[in-house]
Structure formats: C-alpha cells, structure tokens
C-alpha cells in the first residue's frame, strides 16, 4: 500500500568557522592596458566562487565585468584563503576582494596624483577613471594609468607595479570559555525551510519524495543561477543521507561497508522529486559585503528531518535516525504493529 504524507523542517547553517580565525586573501593587478586580473584564494569546487568574486570585483572597481579576468589556481603568487568549506567564502572572501580593491584604488590615485601634479586626496576614482575634484577633464583612465606605470605610454614616467592586496577574517581565533563553553565568534547564519510530500510503500519500505519545496534566506543572492544550483544541488546529499546512503549499515560494526557505487547508491535523476520548487529570501547581513553570506551546505540539512516528518505523517512511525532505508522503515512499521 502506498501512503502519502507531508512534512516540513526549518534549519540553519552557519557561514564561517566557529571560533573564527579563518582569513581569506585576494589581490587585484592592473595590467598595462587597463584590464584587471583578480587573484583569489578560494578554491572553486564547482560552487562558482571565482564567478561571484569577480562579480564583486567588477562592482568594487566600477568597471565592465569583461575587463576583469580571474584566477584561483593556487601557486606561488596566489593569494591564499583558509579554504572553501564551512560555507564561508561568500561571507569572507568578498571582504578580501573589497580590501584589495580599496588598496588598488589608493595606489592608482597615488600614482596618478604624481602625473597630474595634485595630492592623491584631490582625486576621485569613479567608473574606471581617476579625475581631479572640480576639474573632471583632468583625468586618466585605467588604461592610461596602467600603460604609464608599465612604461608603454608616456615617456619619463616612473614605473610601478600596481597591485592591490586585501585580507579579512570575521574575528581573530577565539577559544571556548572553559566554564560556560561560550563562543560568540560566529560569522553569520543562514536559514532554510524545506517542505516535502512523500509516498511510503508499506510493503517494500521505499520512500518516494514526490514534491520538495526548499527556500533559503541567503543575505544577498549574489548570483541567482548559482543560488539555485546550491539549493537543488545540496539536496543531493540531503536526499541520499535521508533515505539511501550508509557507509556502516550495521553500525557500530564496520562490517559490510559498501565497496562500490552500486552498494553505496547515490541519488540519480529518478530519485529527485518529480516537482522541485526552490526560492530564496534576502535579509542583508550586517557582516557581509552587500549583505552577502554563505548558505550552501544548508540545503543538505533541510531534507532529512522534513522527510522523516512526512513519513510520520504518512505511516505514523517516528524514524529517529538516518538513513531511513527500506529496512529501517519496514522494521519501524513492524515494531508499530507489534
């Protein structure tokens, strides 16, 4: 018999290490032709960190995004970031990019000030140009500044390597209070809600998630295409964890550990809900650049409790563990009958 149920869950996910002390760095270099190269330390795992950090850099340097090239290939001169984990990059790395942009703009103003024979404070930086306050015709474009610094334009100018660098962390590393366990150093927190409809087959124990709705409050949706990917994407680990995946099926015993992806089955296209609705909300976070914070592990947290709530709604059993494999579901049903 197939029984239907509905369940919901409201969950959080913190952005950044607990205890902080996880810095990120960035660097932006001005090339001779006025284009820019952004070096970030965040490793792009496919979540699109390089893409969003370039979006920030374009806004901060006020240039068309086509003028910025970006790299995250760790090597000698790469800026280093603590890493791509703890959903920290969207909260922390934009600050490093912002500091690098401010540093570069300052160096550009200082360099151009010499050429324009004014004090750096008399220069405005706006939309890829430095100009003298009150005399906007006395200006230099990024290409002119870069070309002169690179000694390919204008004879007799001093050469300069114009690179802005920046680093940031939410707070210095903070240990727990030994008595109360207090730990106030939390970067930011994101919030999600997952609603599912399931169909439980009481003969086989199989649970089919027929509809899922998952909405995350993300501070600022820096790139909605990538926000979507994280909501629908994190659901993969969430569904697998809730219903299928178990590295120690007879825990605590280590026996029968799965050895291939047939035994350690992963959700396929067919395991995803027939209907998947996703969305985001924005509550600009005070610690984020433009209110942005990370959330992307969170979409894994929502499905398991929502699915167990739906199973309870469908067949009246509490499954206080995951994964709720067919064996677990059938045992729970049998225990209820007994």
């Amino acid at each position, binding site marked *: 018999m197939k029984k239907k149920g509905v369940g919901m869950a409201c969950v959080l996910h913190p952005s950044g290490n607990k205890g902080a002390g996880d810095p990120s760095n960035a660097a932006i270099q001005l090339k001779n032709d006025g284009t820019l190269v952004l070096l970030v330390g965040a490793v792009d795992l*496919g979540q699109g960190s390089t893409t969003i950090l370039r979006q920030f850099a374009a806004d901060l340097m006020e240039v068309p995004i086509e003028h910025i090239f970006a790299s995250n290939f760790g090597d000698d001169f790469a800026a280093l970031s603590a890493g791509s984990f703890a959903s920290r990059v969207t909260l922390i790395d934009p600050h490093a990019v912002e500091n690098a942009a401010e540093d570069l703009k300052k160096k550009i103003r200082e360099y151009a000030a010499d050429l324009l024979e004014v004090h750096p404070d008399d220069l405005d930086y706006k939309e890829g140009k430095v100009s003298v306050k009150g005399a906007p015709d006395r200006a230099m474009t990024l290409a002119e500044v870069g070309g002169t610094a690179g000694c390919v334009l204008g004879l007799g100018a001093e050469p300069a390597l114009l690179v802005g660098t920046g680093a940031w962390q939410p707070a210095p590393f903070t240990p727990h209070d030994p008595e109360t366990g207090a730990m106030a150093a939390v970067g930011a927190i994101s919030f999600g809600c997952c609603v599912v409809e399931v169909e439980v087959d009481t003969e086989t124990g199989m649970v089919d998630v027929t509809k899922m709705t998952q909405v995350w409050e993300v501070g600022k949706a820096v790139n909605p295409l990538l926000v979507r*990917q994280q909501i629908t994407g994190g*659901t993969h680990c969430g569904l697998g964890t809730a219903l299928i995946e178990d590295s120690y099926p007879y825990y605590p015993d280590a026996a029968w550990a799965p050895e*291939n*992806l*047939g035994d350690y089955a*992963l959700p*396929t*296209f067919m395991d995803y809900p027939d209907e998947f609705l996703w969305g985001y909300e924005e509550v600009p976070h005070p610690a984020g650049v433009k209110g942005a914070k990370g959330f992307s592990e969170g979409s894994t947290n929502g499905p398991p409790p929502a699915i167990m709530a739906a199973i309870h709604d469908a067949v009246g059993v509490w499954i206080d563990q995951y994964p709720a494999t067919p064996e677990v579901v059938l045992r729970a049903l049998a225990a209820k009958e007994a």
Partner: protein
Amino acid sequence: MKQILSFTLNGAPVDVIVTATETLLDVLREKLGVTGPKRGCDNGDCGTCTVLLDGEPVRSCLTIALTVAGRQVLTVEGLSPDGDLHPLQKAFHEHGAFQCGFCTPGMLMSAKALLDTNPNPSRVEIREYMSGNLCRCGSYEEVVEAIQAVAAGEYKE
C-alpha cells in the same frame, strides 16, 4: 600481447597499440591524451566515462578497447570540432547544468544520444534516460532544463 587497434575517434582515424585487457577508457585517457571521459569508479556505476560508440552511449571503463576496432567513437572533445560549441554545450553553460564539471563530459554524451534518438523527450523520459549519469553536485534539475531547451530549438546550430 599487444595489437594495433584502428578506429575512428571524433571523426579522425587513429591507430594505437593496445593489450587485450586495456579498456577504451585506459586507451583514451592514457595513450591518446583524450581526458574528457573521466575515471569515476571503474565499475560502470557512475557514467563519468560515457562515450558514444557508433552513436550509442557506452561505459568506456567497461569496454574492452579491441572491441571498438573499425568503429566510431565520439567523446566530448568531438562535440565542437570547429571550435563552436554544440547546442547542448551552450545550453549546459547558460542553464548552469554542472558545478564541478567532472560528470559533464559523460552527461553531454548521454544527452546527445538521447536527443539523436528522441528529439522531443518529456521530462520523465529525460530523467529516465539520463539516470545512468550520476552528479554528486546535484545539477539534475538544470540538466533536464538544458536538454528541454535544446529540444525546444532554443539553441540552433
């Protein structure tokens, strides 16, 4: 024992010395420098090694190299022979139908084979056909959308 294997790879003839136990995946990646098809499990479970053999999607990790003698093999590298992206490649890029990109070469080959045999698949048909290609990043929804967009003619070649 080694033999010369001759077949057509991405439209061009190729000859390579292989042993009887080497798989097509071994030969592509380690002998011919064709690294689009990936080694995800060596067991036929994940689909990251998917290539088209005479138009049919196969697990190159389970295909003995010598069995492709005289046949046509198409890998992701063969989808854009003149440098212009194949409609599926454009659609995948614009719809965000990948994240880390490791499963993408295999996904694209399965998607091509699907549309070559069923130019107007339903959402259910797409999901069933593609279900042999795993994506741990979870880009399934976007892959379906990208395939539907190509089927609807949004990316004319």
